[in-house]
């Protein structure tokens, strides 16, 4: 099973590139006092909220919903 960090990067990279996707994960982790590798499924709500905040100006909400569902499913 891929880690949450890997799932987020896999989902976001096609849209924002690997570097920015990684920044999203690290930013979320930092905001809850963890490192990116320490993120678990329990942190999904915080991660989703952060991803939605970062992506909503650059992508339609439908695309963001789809990406978040992909992250939750892990594919």
């Amino acid at each position, binding site marked *: 099973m891929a880690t949450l960090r890997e799932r987020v990067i896999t989902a976001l*990279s*096609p*849209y*924002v*590139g*690997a*570097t*920015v996707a990684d*920044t*999203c994960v690290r930013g979320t982790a930092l905001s809850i006092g963890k490192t990116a590798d320490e993120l678990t499924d329990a942190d999904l709500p915080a991660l989703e909220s952060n991803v939605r*905040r*970062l*992506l*909503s*100006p*650059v*992508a*339609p*909400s*439908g*695309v963001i*919903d*789809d990406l978040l569902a992909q992250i939750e499913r892990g594919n």
Partner: protein
Amino acid sequence: MAAPTTTAQKNSVITPATYISAGVLIGLTALYGFLSTQMYADALSDTAYAMSYWFGTLLQVLFAVVIIAVALRIGLSQGVGKQWLLVGLGVAAFAIGDIIWTVLELHMGLDPYPSLADPFYVLQYVFFIAAMALAIRSYSHLTPVRAPLITAGVVGLILGGVVYALLLGPHIFPAGTAELGFWGLVVSTLYPLGDVFFMLAPALALALVIRQLGAGRLGWPWWVVIIGALIYALTDAGYSFADWSGSGLTATLEMGWAAANLTFALAALVARDVYRIR
């Protein structure tokens, strides 16, 4: 055996519909390119000339309709929807300017420069820079935007200096209001400077921002917009320089605006696919 095909179709970002629509728009623009060469060669009858003239003008309307339709489909409640609406309104303003220009020149036999068409042409700059500002700001939480803005500002100032050295200083300012009239001087100054400060510099800033996305597909449509802005600015600059230096206007130069607005329309089609839910 069907699985790989299905996966390939699912993963294909740009849809067949976009390829077909883009092909039609490019074909229509190419046809206008051919007609434009015939118009410049004086090889058309009066009726064919008038029809070709209107064909080119209505082509701009079509480009605007395509972009605005995409913006409406994305949704104006979405940030990106507003950005594309502004791009579309810019092309629509240009199209209105072209309609006025066509009526004045073709049907009323008037010199349309300067005229009521010019405020609409200038409006394209206003809408374009607003779209670029929104697009750049939208990425400010994802990537650094300050360095791109400063770099683009510096490049803009340098290019502004080039415009002054090659065009404004030697040609336009010496002609002044005596030769151009007040509004003629205003628009003759505004166009080349607008190309630099309202088209090229913002497009460069956006390019420097979205290059940080790497191959990320959210940047794709904006890359196409940046190419369109480059074509637009080069056409305007080339047209002004050719006109003032006496090197002569050509059908290729005339085609530049159609090519630029075509490119904006193609960018909108790419955006439609990029923002599609997979």
